[in-house]
């Protein structure tokens, strides 16, 4: 009778309301497969206290949800601000990294660098939940920009859209050729073959002879040498890149990045800087936070957990105690803090997670030449230079003022090397590499700021690194409740280095603690 899925859901909605629709959608496999579940704790927390170590997203979401359920909460935070790695650097901000190297950001008003997380996938439903609850405004981050480049030091600089279409065209042509020559005999029947040929022709922009060729029709996908215009200008066809050129320079490798699940459209950034979510949580948990508190000892006993900390403002030593403890301190630091009363397995596992390197540089240019000269509005250019990628601002398009691009985003040994350089040398090298992609950068460079995560005083590294073995051997221990003590942070999630990981880890810690507290 031709009832579409949508019609059916409409009927369910009429009968049972939106909750029923959602439940049915989940059963049908249509709803988001998110692992986020809003903690439903009721009001059982009265008279119990949870001590939270670390005021990043994991710590604050824990405090926020526990407090709603009546728990008393207290957060010890090393920095003078909350948010941890969810951090935005703006004009006027001073940043002193480990080793004493000092930088003062000289960006224009409204311009910023997000040195840590910077993008919000729609996949990340915990984040989206709190964005809705707190009214955190999001704007679209164009993860895939067809007009941004793939750049190679060998001298290649191609627009991603053209590359993508050429690759698709060539592969389709090859496959069509193989099919026509019966090279895939046994793979499919005659009818299937005809179907696949038809699909390849359409999907690969092939001509009537199943060739991916230079034509106005092909150019209507990959673009023209001269665009269609008014009157007698139908457009001048462009010449596709050869498959050889694409494969030889590994140009295709960067095309797949945007296809990763978390990068699927729509992906966002918070308006004004990534710290919007941190500020939203901080506004709701500030009363619980003891800023500038450096934890120096953790002790678990039968009745609770006591943290000793140095009050960095006064220099005095204090203690804080809770019936339970959610510890969000990065393992790079926690592994150095003496503890008693933790299970030997946990104490050992805490010492076995190395932290990954990462490096970013924000470059302020005097004008938005990427937009004005090259029609690149947001998105990411990839290069084989150590800078890794360049990302253009996804906001204030066509502004006549200055603009800040992410001029480098590195991982691995390159990040280690750049982190070890002094800030001035880093910028010089990043600029040199930016110029290789955009020659205008030389004249337009204004100022910049860089962050190498192993020099960040409050994390000593970017994120928890696991491999198959450590995931199996120590990770389950790190995730488990240890009597009254539980870890939370991106390092207790499979979304490492994402805010989602911290939020999921925090909310799940809250559920686990609440369950334990309810039984006690």
């Amino acid at each position: 009778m031709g009832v579409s899925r949508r019609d059916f859901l409409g009927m369910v909605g009429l009968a049972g309301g939106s909750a029923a629709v959602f439940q049915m959608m989940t059963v049908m496999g249509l709803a988001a497969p998110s692992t986020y579940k809003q903690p439903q704790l009721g009001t059982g927390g009265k008279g119990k206290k949870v001590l939270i170590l670390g005021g990043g997203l994991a710590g604050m979401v824990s405090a926020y949800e526990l407090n709603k359920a009546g728990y008393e909460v207290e957060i010890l935070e090393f920095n003078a601000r909350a948010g941890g790695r969810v951090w935005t650097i703006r004009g006027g901000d001073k940043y002193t990294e480990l080793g004493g190297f000092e930088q003062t950001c000289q960006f224009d008003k409204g311009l910023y660098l997000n040195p840590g997380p910077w993008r919000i996938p729609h996949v990340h439903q915990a984040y989206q939940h709190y964005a809705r609850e707190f009214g955190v405004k999001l704007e679209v981050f164009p993860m895939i920009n067809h007009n941004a480049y793939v750049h190679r030091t060998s001298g290649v600089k191609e627009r991603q859209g053209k590359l993508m279409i050429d690759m698709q065209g060539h592969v389709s042509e090859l496959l069509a050729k193989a099919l026509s020559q019966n090279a895939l005999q046994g793979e499919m029947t005659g009818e299937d073959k005809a179907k696949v040929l038809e699909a390849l022709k359409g999907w690969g922009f092939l001509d009537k002879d199943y060739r991916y060729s230079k034509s106005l029709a092909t150019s209507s996908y990959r673009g023209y040498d001269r665009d269609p215009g008014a009157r007698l200008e139908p457009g001048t066809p462009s010449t596709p890149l050869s498959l050889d050129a694409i494969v030889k320079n590994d140009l295709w490798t960067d095309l797949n990045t945007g296809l990763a699940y978390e990068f699927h459209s729509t992906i966002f950034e918070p308006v004004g800087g990534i710290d919007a979510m941190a500020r939203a949580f901080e506004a709701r948990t500030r009363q619980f936070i003891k800023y500038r508190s450096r934890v120096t000892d953790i002790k678990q006993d039968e009745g609770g957990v006591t943290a000793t900390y140095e009050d960095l403002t006064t220099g005095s030593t204090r203690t804080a105690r809770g019936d339970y403890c959610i510890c969000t301190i990065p393992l790079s630091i926690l592994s150095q803090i003496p503890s008693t009363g933790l299970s030997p397995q946990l104490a050992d596992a805490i010492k076995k997670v190395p932290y990954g390197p990462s490096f970013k540089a924000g470059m302020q240019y005097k004008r938005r030449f990427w937009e004005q000269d090259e029609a690149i509005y947001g998105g990411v250019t990839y290069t084989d230079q150590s800078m890794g990628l360049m990302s253009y601002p996804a906001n204030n398009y066509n502004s006549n003022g200055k603009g800040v691009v992410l001029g480098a985003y590195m991982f691995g040994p390159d990040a280690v090397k750049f982190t070890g350089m002094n800030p001035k040398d880093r910028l010089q090298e990043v600029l040199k590499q930016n110029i290789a992609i955009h020659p205008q950068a030389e004249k337009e460079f204004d100022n910049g700021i860089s962050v190498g995560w192993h020099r960040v005083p409050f994390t000593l590294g970017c994120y928890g690194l696991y491999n198959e073995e450590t995931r199996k051997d120590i990770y389950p221990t790190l995730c488990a409740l240890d009597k009254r003590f539980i870890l939370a942070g991106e390092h207790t999630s499979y979304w490492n280095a994402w805010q989602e990981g911290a939020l999921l880890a925090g909310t799940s810690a809250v559920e686990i603690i609440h369950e334990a507290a309810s039984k006690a």
Partner: protein
Amino acid sequence: MASKRREFSLLPTLLLSLVIGTVLGVLLLLLFGRHVGNPDTVSAVNAGIPGTTVIDRNENTGNKAANSSADTASTTNTASTTTAADGTATASGTPATAAATGTATADNASKTPVEGQAAAGSAGAAATAAALPQEQTVTDTSFQGTGAEIYVQACQSCHMPGGKGAKGAGIYPALANNPKLKAMQYPTGMVLYGNGGMPSFGHYMNDQQISEVVNYIRTELNNNTDKVTPDDVKKMRQPGQHYMIFGEAAG
């Protein structure tokens, strides 16, 4: 006004919807119910259960990279592995690929063959093989030069120029005038295997490079006179060791 009319027809609509809904629900479950099983499959896979293939979210959250050693072991790897729709992966292609227990998905840092990370193991293509891991091949092009130069490139980011160390919420120990460095096994082991938050550099330096940087630290930043040879380093490498890879993307 209009509400009255609606009220009148509400009950039959509800009943009809329920009946149709239940019937269609069963039908659609039959049609689409298959998808419901997916998350389970994936979580089992993520748990690293032996014998299954691994789609590992771990350190590489930007791309679904597994951080197993074998992924980066083979620079000839063409990564012609495929991920089946049900979340399990199958391997095909070169023996090197088939030997991998996890395939790196490359971001900018890991895509260069120089890193020993096959260009083909590109972003988003989480692909794996269910076979025994092979011996990890060391990448020795990341850090280059004399011991002093390697120190600047690899160690200085944390241990600081001159090995003076640093203190924030945690500390980086000073390497200059550090009595712990008297025994050459100690710093050599640190470089090879890492410690706590410090990543291992065993994948990123060959025995010669490790001996040079250890000698620099022990003799230039300290007053030791005996030298570590590449052979000493080699002896400290445990066979079958999977050194941590950290050339991948995050959020």
